[in-house]
């Protein structure tokens, strides 16, 4: 079930929130039970029985293995890793080996598998104690605001708030505001960019004129950020409605000044997961430069494989791995002293090329697409490119604005102001959120249903 649907927005969410707050605060276990039940219903309705069963299996396996892994016992960690990664690999790769066994991947599997595995490793390392209560642990794993597309939670981050959450009026209002902004980002901006990108990537790559190929790549670059960060905004907002504060997953990645910087700002919960559970255990940068390069490439190979089972995802992962490896010595040269805007543009160009790899159905298509971007496909000029720019001009402008921290800058300027500035700071975001909620509802009805990009991972 996507957050930007009528079923969720108008029925499921109000019902879940109302019932949650009808339960007095002094019964946190009951509130937690309500949220867990709502989450399982969310999972069942949105993903079917297979999704619920897979989620329950992951919860049970990681719960038991974590209990057994306490005191630095390795075998339960290996068992948990085998079962969890095995389940993920089965659903991701089985279609390549047996068409008859191929089934749709359960909703959010990639995310909750990593969340469960991270928890088991944390318990093994002694970072957190194993959770004794299965319902509390199940709530941590299944909580619907983050179930489908993260952020990938760490148990230590939410353990103190389980099971009832720490709901406050301020937190609720802030969460609702954030949710409305995320909803609008998805429905008003990301979906329009999706239409543009889908149109371009629907054509044979070798026939694309250069102009259209670039417009398509830009549209997809905007779409994937607006879409995924919108989901994260909504997830974080929903978390606060129930009294949970989830970690930020994005920090304006398209304002990054290097590829390394970009990955510190993009899908932060996944990057930090790979850093803490793969890169550092492999030795990180502690075992010499050559080993560091190998470690980086391993991490990025796995990141690519996590996103998809086709070769273009592997190539996409390695593309960033190689860029990060090359960037480290490059930053010590004159490149590192170039003005920030220049480095931002170079970074964005490299990211856009990576997006083409990511969006292409296969490696061959991506190669032909790159050639078309260089004018070696269907020529240079394209009426279709102009059409896409004119048709979605409001979305291009607003989408670009949303990629940069103007909102944050404005908030900072108004925060400590008295008088009118203070009034705008207090009322402005809420009024804007209400307007965006109404506009989103309008767009939801006038547009057709479209699921989030990151559901497929």
């Amino acid at each position, binding site marked *: *079930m996507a957050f930007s*649907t*009528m*079923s969720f*927005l*108008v*029925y499921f*969410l*109000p019902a879940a929130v109302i019932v949650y707050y009808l339960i007095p605060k002094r019964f946190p276990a009951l509130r937690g039970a309500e949220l867990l039940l709502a989450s399982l219903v969310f999972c*069942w*309705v*949105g*993903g*079917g*029985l*297979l*999704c619920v069963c897979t989620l329950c299996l992951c919860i049970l396996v990681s719960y038991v293995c974590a209990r057994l892994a306490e005191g630095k016992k390795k075998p339960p960690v290996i068992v948990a890793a085998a079962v969890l990664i095995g389940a993920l690999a089965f659903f991701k790769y089985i279609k390549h080996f047996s068409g008859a066994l191929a089934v*749709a991947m359960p909703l959010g599997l990639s995310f909750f598998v990593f969340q469960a595995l991270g928890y088991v490793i944390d318990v093994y390392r002694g970072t957190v104690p194993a959770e004794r209560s299965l319902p509390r642990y199940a709530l941590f794993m299944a909580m619907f605001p983050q179930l489908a597309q993260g952020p990938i939670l760490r148990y230590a981050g939410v353990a103190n708030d389980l099971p009832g959450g720490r709901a406050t*009026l*301020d937190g*609720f*209002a802030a969460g*609702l*505001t954030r949710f*409305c902004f995320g909803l609008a980002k998805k429905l008003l901006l990301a979906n329009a960019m999706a239409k543009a990108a889908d*149109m371009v990537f629907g*054509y*044979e790559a070798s*026939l694309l004129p250069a102009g259209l190929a670039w417009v398509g790549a830009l549209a997809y670059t905007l779409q994937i950020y607006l879409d995924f960060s919108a989901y994260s905004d909504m997830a974080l907002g929903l978390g606060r409605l129930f009294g949970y504060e989830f970690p930020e997953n994005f920090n304006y990645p398209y304002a990054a000044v290097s590829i390394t910087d970009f990955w510190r700002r993009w899908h932060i919960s996944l990057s930090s997961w790979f850093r803490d559970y793969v890169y550092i255990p492999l030795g990180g940068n502690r075992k010499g430069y050559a080993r560091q390069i190998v470690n980086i490439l391993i991490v990025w190979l796995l990141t690519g494989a996590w996103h998809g089972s086709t070769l273009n995802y592997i190539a996409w992962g390695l593309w960033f791995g190689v860029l990060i490896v090359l960037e480290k010595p490059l930053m010590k040269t004159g490149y590192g002293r170039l003005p920030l805007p220049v480095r931002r543009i170079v970074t964005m160009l490299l990211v856009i090329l990576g997006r083409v790899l990511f969006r292409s159905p296969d490696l061959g298509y991506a190669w032909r697409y790159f050639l078309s971007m260089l004018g070696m496909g*269907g020529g240079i000029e394209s*009426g*279709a490119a*102009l*059409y896409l720019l*004119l*048709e*979605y*001009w*409001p979305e291009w402008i607003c989408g670009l604005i949303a990629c940069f921290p103007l909102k944050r800058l404005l908030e900072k300027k108004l925060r400590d102001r008295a008088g009118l500035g203070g*009034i705008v700071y*207090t*009322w402005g975001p*809420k009024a804007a*959120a*209400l307007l965006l*909620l*109404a506009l989103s*509802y*309008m*767009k*939801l*009805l*006038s547009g057709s*249903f479209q699921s989030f990009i990151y559901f497929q991972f």
Partner: protein
Amino acid sequence: MKRVSNILFIACAAVFLLLIAAVTILRPAETFSYYENRSLAKKPVNDPALVNDGTWYPAMEKFLCDSAAGRKTITKLCTAADLSLKRPVVNDVVIGDGILLPFNPYEAVDRAKLKRQAEAIGNNLKAVSDVTESVGGRYYYVSVPCQYSYCAEDYPDYLDDRAELTAASVEALTESLSARGVGYIDTGPAFDAMGKDMTLSSTVDNHFSIFGAYEAYRIVLEAMNSDGCDVPVLGKDELTFTETENYYMGSRTRKLFNLVKNTEHLWRADPVAPVEFTRTNNGNWGVPSVYHREEPWTPLLYTYYMGGDIGETVIETDRPAYPDILIYGDSFTNAMECILYLSCDTMYSLDLRHYRGTVSDYILEHEPDYVICVRSYESLLSTTYNGGR
């Protein structure tokens, strides 16, 4: 102040969402959306098995969106907003200067694919042609220009008018049908020769006007007669053209919720010398008229011509000296039929979207003298849409 703003904000959002939920549940259910010309989604059965296999939720979502509070008004508002934002294409309609055209998705011309399609439809048509000849009749496949083709010059340079695709399709089809000996009449060049007279087309609909329908009728019958057929052709002076008073809701106007008004009206053509006839629709006696009756205040749709969406229509003029003609194909036949029956003893018309049997069986049963399949350039090579099989 912050506390007050928080409470007010939460209350407003809650009232908004709960109001939508309540109105959606309580409002009377609608089953059809006039401006979208489609049936609205039905409520799915509440069956846990459907939830388990993941099919219930998408169906429910579609139903909820279709039956949501204020849907029609909101969709209309969004269309108005898109128009005011000066988007070149709104609801798949190209907003031209005094004309509303269809948006054609950009499509590269793949000649090999067109050839394959032309071969496939050529085989289908050859089979029908053979059946027609087996009962002593003659078969003709006819192509007519649709709005995007006839008004190609009205598209902005950056939008696709499909001129290249249309030319390549006609070329491939001509080759395919010629190789199989199937009669083919392309009315496009004759229309072009008339100098793009805009009274022949519509500015708000895909179809030609009754004047365009008359020209298509004339071009087709003259081409048939020059091929050795013997079908009487009415001159323009044998018809009276009358403008209807009703507002004309073209398909493009309708897609835009009638927010872009038009001054175009539908016309009708009646014979100067009246011809008595009887009409049956799907075997039942119908009103002996080729124009659908509407009240003066009701907007007219293209279904004004022949009524539209009827599986089988038979018009008998009881003039044995005239030929029996079967006409089928896409909706361009409707306006043509309003004139064609005047050249027939019996005119049979099939709408294959609704007719249960096959064209071949129908021909064997009724043994018409001529069979004409009329399709626009849009569906020329399609083996699936009306008239392709």
